[in-house]
């Protein structure tokens, strides 16, 4: 069963571009620590100082738009972000997060409700967000996506279950 996550909110705006999350010149590196250290280094250098392990990232609409770089999701996960909750996600970032086992919840109203530093609880399996005494329902995932998340990403999922999931 996927965990419930609770933690302090780190807040970001709408249309956050993966190019801002991690600039292209770092894509030659795959070490998550190097990527995490350089999060938002061009546009928000203080971001890394604000984040500590267990924080929950709350963002506006279309989070992770732009480039397909999986490094963006890897860097956020390595910095200790436990789950990303956004009004909506750009499709490649959404896929990448599932693929690397970073839980993401699409939830309308979360960005208006939460401020930086708020305490938040997120039930990824049920797609429910608890904040300020309110309960927000997010978009429900199909079973296979929850299954990938339970395996902490596609790598383990394919390693363990390839023969079961193949079409033929």
């Amino acid at each position, binding site marked *: 069963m996927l965990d419930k996550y609770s933690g302090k909110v780190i807040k970001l705006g709408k249309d956050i571009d993966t190019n801002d999350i991690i600039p292209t010149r770092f894509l030659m590196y795959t070490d998550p620590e190097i990527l995490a250290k350089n999060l938002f280094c*061009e546009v928000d250098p203080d971001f890394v100082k604000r984040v500590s392990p267990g924080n929950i990232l709350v963002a506006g609409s279309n989070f992770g738009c732009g480039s397909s770089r999986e490094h963006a999701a890897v860097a956020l996960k390595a910095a200790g972000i436990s789950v990303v909750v956004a009004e909506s996600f750009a499709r490649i970032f959404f896929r990448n997060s599932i693929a690397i086992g970073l839980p993401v919840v699409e939830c309308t109203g979360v960005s208006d409700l939460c401020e930086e530093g708020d305490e938040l609880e997120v039930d990824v399996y049920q797609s429910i967000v608890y904040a300020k005494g309110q309960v927000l329902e997010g978009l429900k995932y*199909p079973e*296979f996506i929850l299954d990938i998340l339970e395996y902490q990403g596609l*790598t383990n999922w394919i*390693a363990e279950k390839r023969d079961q999931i193949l079409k033929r």
Partner: protein
Amino acid sequence: MALLLHRFITKYLIGQLSLKNFRKGKVLVGETFAQKILAKKSEKTRVEEDQFIRCRVDGLLANDTTSRLMLESFNKMNRDIAEMPEGCSIYFDHYTPPPSQDAAINHKIIREFCYTNNITLYDVGRGSHLHVPIEVGQCRPGMLFVGADSHTTVLGGIGAFATGVGSTDLASVLATGELWFRVPPVIKIELKGQLSEYVVAKDVMLEVVRRLTIPGGRYKALEFTGEAAKAMSIESRLAIASMAVDIGAKVGFFEADEKTEAYIKEYTDKSYDYIKSDPDANYEQIVSINVSEIEPLVAIHPRIDNVCPVSELKNTIEVDEVYLGSCTNGRLEDLEVAAKMLKGKSIHQNIRLVVAPQSQIIFNKALEKGIIKQLSEAGAIILPCGCGPCSGTHLGVLAPEEKVLSTGSRNAPGRMGSGKSQIFVASPVTAAATAISGKIEDPRKIGWGDIRC
């Protein structure tokens, strides 16, 4: 799990069919190109919008920024490489030639993976993974292609269902030959009328971006139709399709036609499918644009949907660099039209004009036609084929406070260097006019170059 997946799909599909068609009062409406291609690749008779499916993928692409993460994930999966009709190809196009030891090490690791696993590698100098797949006949109309690069949508310009994914997603395709998809609803973009002089496909796409905005195509497919789409060259269609992702879309599609056939035939005799939407297909939205009314446009820093006509810029915007290239505008017709502006003229003394053709074949054609000579004589610097400047990896990187007029597709802060630099995106025609003038310039004011040269 298979049972769960089956249950989910069955439930979802039945729900979709009955609800949607009940509302429409019809048994079944026609299918979009997206439904047709994805149904075929998932071996179903029909799929519906927003349905989750698993598809057999025809081929996959990765570049030197994304393939190392891919190979690391693939190695952890502990599986053999799956068979795919068009296989896997890796292209070195972002750090080419390597600007640092770390970049060279990155290439070395990827190169060894390719040799060990018998994966086709297009090494430094061959060109971009967003154009070379057409030149080598790997990607053709009707195919389902995935690439670890968001601009993989470019290949929709020849009628492929081509979309970007991440590295681990791609590794899973390498290990299984398959991938999960959500069937996208389609936005039809009807392009009517005729382009004015000095206006090109890039201006049309900037108008589309202005109207739909950055999140406007999120999770959708875009299909470009109409007389102006038909009249466009394949290179123009590729330019437009490349930017589908910049408004969040999964695919940017032009139905293949006789022009596509002629373009493809230059490179390959391999077969392919003409797949097109049915006349009664269900579109989520129809956007109609009269391209005759479009004038040279520019997307103003820091958002690509912050678009206005160059003629309406209130302030003079002096730039430090002009960049001609990228998967959007690094093809032969882009170089040709810029050279037509620059012929017999010199670029402004304060400007550095950097030009990066998309592929070696394009470079060689431009060389034969005298285009490279014209650009160079006007003062341009010709860079190796690839994507360097647009992605800020190397060559033409910007310092804080610098401004660039780019023919790329993105202008987010820090995209081409410092987060404090500014990027303005426009067509190759406007780029050439700007290089001459030193400030963002309406090409109609500058006029074509000296035709006697």
